[in-house]
């Protein structure tokens, strides 16, 4: 392994390891502030620069929280499996950090410092497949945490997490298939390149439906509200990380937010044009800014949804995945396939194809919704007479 290669690897990965954890700190502050404002509170506003009265809107809060987490006692339950109890938070963080490498982010300094033009962590041809494969590891970490804690709440949380993540992974992948089909490549950079010039997939009917399905499934994959059943604090205390304290808890927290960034990043690549945006042609480094801005846009929507929607019931959660999202995403693949291969000449102009496919998809969603709604009848008491 040559020295240049090691240098290139460092140039590509160190920014990811620095930027995203700092963005995580900022996001916790953003989330707390936004939720507070939604509930007509102020949110953290005291902690700023230490030893001064400068509070900076409470931006010092994440640092204070981090220091608090580091100094907290690390408690392991008596009956817990100590090895796996330690391993679970690490295993939760690793895949989350790893998938960041597949995002086509080209930081401006990589061009200056490296001999090659533009270093990126993994220019893999199968990036999208690898992304899903590695995200799947997260489920294992969560169940490991639930099992190793030897706590009923933790185990219940872990079981819920398995059921939820396995169910929602299918619509997640199937909605990404639509984009992969249209581009004909699994390479994240190619997919982003195919959407240049406002050809974003979210602006097509099948792309819009796929984006909505992807976003819902992403919420479930990252255990975000309204799909936060594995860690439902009103039901399971904290779910799978009930027995975690101190820095291990912080690692879980970090892993969760990093996977939020990662899956938002994938959504940006697949549907929102990657780094495309005004000014990219003149200044190529603006692409990174656009990319991160789009990720933050999606995360803001996630926070907004968390402030709005109540948590689903377990049966509602499973029914929604299997009876609504799955059929709709399969139909969406069919529609996208027809739209891709139908000859777009005077007989079928683009507008007609789009209108028809949108109509078909909307009708299907509406019908599935109708089919899934059980008739609500007055309750019958059979044995109470």
């Amino acid at each position, binding site marked *: 392994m040559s020295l240049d290669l090691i240098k290139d690897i460092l140039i590509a990965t160190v920014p990811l390891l620095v930027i995203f954890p700092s963005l995580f700190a900022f996001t916790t502050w953003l989330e707390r502030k*936004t939720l507070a404002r*939604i509930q*007509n*509170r*102020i949110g953290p*506003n005291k902690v700023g620069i230490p030893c001064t009265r400068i509070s900076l809107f409470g931006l010092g809060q994440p640092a204070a929280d981090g220091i608090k987490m580091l100094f907290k006692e690390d408690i392991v339950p008596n009956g817990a499996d100590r090895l796996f109890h330690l391993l679970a938070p690490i295993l939760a963080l690793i895949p989350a950090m790893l998938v960041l490498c597949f995002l086509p982010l080209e930081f401006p300094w990589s061009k200056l410092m490296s001999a090659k033009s533009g270093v990126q962590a993994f220019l893999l041809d199968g990036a999208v497949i690898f992304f899903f494969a590695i995200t799947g590891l997260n489920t294992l970490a969560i169940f490991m945490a639930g099992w190793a804690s030897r706590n009923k709440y933790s185990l219940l949380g872990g079981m819920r997490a398995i059921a939820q993540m396995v169910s929602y992974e299918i619509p997640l992948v199937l909605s990404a298939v639509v984009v992969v089909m249209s581009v004909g490549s699994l390479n994240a950079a190619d997919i982003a390149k195919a959407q240049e010039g406002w050809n974003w997939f979210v602006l097509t009917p099948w792309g819009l439906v796929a984006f909505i399905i992807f976003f819902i499934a992403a919420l479930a994959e990252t255990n975000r509200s309204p799909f936060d059943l594995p860690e439902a604090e009103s039901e399971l205390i904290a779910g799978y990380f009930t027995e975690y304290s101190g820095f291990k808890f912080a690692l879980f927290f970090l892993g969760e937010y990093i996977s939020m960034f990662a899956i938002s990043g994938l959504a940006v690549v697949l549907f929102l044009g990657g780094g495309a945006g005004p000014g990219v042609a003149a200044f190529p480094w603006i692409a990174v800014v656009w990319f991160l801005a789009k990720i933050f846009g999606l995360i803001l929507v996630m926070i*907004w949804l968390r402030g*709005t929607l109540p948590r689903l019931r377990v049966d509602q959660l499973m029914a929604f995945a299997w009876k609504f999202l799955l059929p709709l995403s399969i139909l969406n693949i069919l529609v996208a396939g027809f739209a891709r291969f139908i000859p777009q000449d005077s007989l079928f102009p683009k507008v007609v194809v789009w209108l028809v496919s949108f109509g078909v998809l*909307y009708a299907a969603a*509406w019908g599935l919704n109708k089919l899934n709604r059980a008739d609500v009848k007055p309750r019958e008491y059979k044995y109470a007479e």
Partner: protein
Amino acid sequence: MNILGAGIFKGLGVTLKNFVGSYFDKERLTTNDYSWRPDDKLPQSVGEYPKEEGEQLSDTTTVTNYSRNFPMLLHDGGEPMDTVRCVACKICERECPPQCIYIEKDYDENGKHIKRPAVFDIDVSVCMSCQICVEVCPFDAIVMNSQFELSTPNRFGGLLLRRDDLLKSNDYYHQIHPEEAAARDQQMAEAKAAKEAKKKAAAEAAKKKAEEKAKAEAEAKAREVAEDKTEDTE
């Protein structure tokens, strides 16, 4: 036919309205931001409760709906301990259901009881705002205060109000509860007038009685004198 997912967007609209509104409408906020205050001292009474930066402290003397009511001790102006109405009779201490009042009598150097409390503590972390102390006080010395900001940085005894914290003038009482204070003053004046009238009547009665007695005595004396005269003549 409803548009699919319309409910979610409606909900998002509600939260957005609250989000934006909380930046512009100060009335929405359920908590108050004191970060602009120069020192860490929190406002201690209704009179010290400004809502916004730059507002004068004396501008907000009205009782808000969010205030909590705990007892205070009244005095009639001037040096508080000279005009304090409380005589340390300990009726309120005995009647207090959660037993949050503690009183010690005050004595002068000869060991004689002065009619005022040396110690009067109310633990407002225990007080349940039942007003029984107010009901039982025969001297109208204890009434309910209205305070908004009761939080304290001291968790050991920060909520134990001492005598000097509890002492408030009658004017302050008029400020926070005008009608109640006026009614109480009128009641006290009436009671005082009735007492004085009774006293006057009693004094008059005593005077009359004394006069009658004197008259009777004089008559008796006169009679005696007359009898003596008759004896002399015999």
